[in-house]
């Protein structure tokens, strides 16, 4: 239960930060995306019954906070999850460099899904232009964030009240 609660808090905080303090950082077309990194971490490391509800929740809150059509982020994140699970047994992602590469690929996939979805919904090519132009730089940024964020997320989702309040000496024993 604490896993779901912690991840819900993470998602809300990430969306709030991305839409306020970090909304123009580093630039208005290139953003810190803590959600996509979390989606990647969930896809790589957590079992389906834990990962899917959290990924759907992340998609819902992203869609609620964003001006895009409702359902776009949910769809995009679930496609990412599905793709990662399909190739998980065939790829190496534990090593640092490999993980960074795969996070960049996930970021590009997210943008591609958004571009295709928006083109299908609106019939206008301008979305694809905007999204694809920003995709390479965004992928590099997402991969760079993942270096720090994935270890944090892995520590964070196992956090419990006991772990926080337990004396350090006892943990050492």
């Amino acid at each position: 239960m604490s896993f779901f609660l912690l991840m819900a808090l993470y998602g809300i905080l990430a969306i709030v930060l991305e839409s306020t303090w970090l909304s123009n950082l580093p630039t208005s077309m290139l953003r810190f995306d803590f959600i996509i990194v979390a989606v990647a971490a969930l896809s790589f490391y957590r079992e389906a019954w834990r990962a899917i509800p959290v990924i759907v929740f992340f998609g819902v809150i992203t869609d609620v906070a964003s001006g895009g059509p409702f359902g776009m982020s949910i769809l995009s994140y679930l496609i990412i999850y599905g793709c990662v699970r399909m190739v998980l047994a065939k790829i190496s992602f534990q090593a640092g460099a490999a993980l960074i590469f795969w996070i960049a690929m996930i970021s590009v996939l997210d943008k591609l899904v958004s571009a295709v979805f928006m083109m299908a919904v609106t019939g206008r090519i301008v979305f694809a232009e905007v999204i694809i132009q920003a995709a390479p730089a965004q992928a590099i940024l997402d991969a760079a964030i993942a270096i720090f964020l994935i270890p944090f997320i892995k520590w964070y989702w196992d956090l419990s009240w006991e772990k926080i309040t337990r004396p350090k000496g006892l943990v050492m024993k």
Partner: protein
Amino acid sequence: MSLFQKKTRLIPLLIPLLLIIAFLSLTTGGARRAPWYEEILRNIITPPQRMFSSIGDAVSGVWSSYFALIGAEEENVILREHVAKLQSDLIRTDEVQKENGRLRDLLSYKETFPYQAIVAKVIANDPKAEFKSITINRGVEDGVKPLMPVIGPRGLVGKIGTVDSGSARVLLIIDPNSTTDVLVQRSRARGLVVGTAMRTELRPSYYLTRMEYLRRISDIKDGDVVVTSGFDRIFPAGIPIGTVNDLEKSRYGVFLDANVVPFENMDELQEVMVLLSGAKKTASKPSEE
């Protein structure tokens, strides 16, 4: 692994997909009253957004004033102690003055429109870089409804998209989902301004919009001012949008295209005004924060 086991593994994927279909089917368009599930989530997200936005404003005020004080120290060391004592007052006064200036600009601009309007504060931007929308601190409780026009001190900002009880999302004119029926002020040539969400080198930190469906014989040139036509029954006629740049006259085709640089810098919006369509002009409601 049996076929049944293989199929049961797909169930966790099928459930959310069905959920998506359900959500998508409930979505009828960009401008609407937020459904209950969205309203619940927005009510979770909006309070921290308001809080973070307020803290951000305060911190940026302190930051900018801090540099101003460094300059003052270098110029006059004797005043340092005095300045330090008055620092907090100065910061507060400076912020209030800036806000007053912005609100005065908005109010004087508002006088040109025979509509009742309310001032709203921008509390959040779009978390997705490819979409350009803002969240304001006014909702259904303040009389805000979907598709109401939103203006800034220099011109058109956008229209209301999703609304909930205490906040609303504004679809900016620079968003690729946005379309506005416009006229060239000088020649009355008609076209559509659509968002591109792309920056322009013509005016740093501004976004570009495109004017489409202009007739080939239209009288239009660089520097022409583009205003709303009022024909779309969303925006009142005559709200300035921007100036024409880079007219594209291809050899073939029925229509002309032109880039339009909006008057408003969407990244710097802090207060906007919602025109309560159809209502008669009365005193505006002051901003909460």
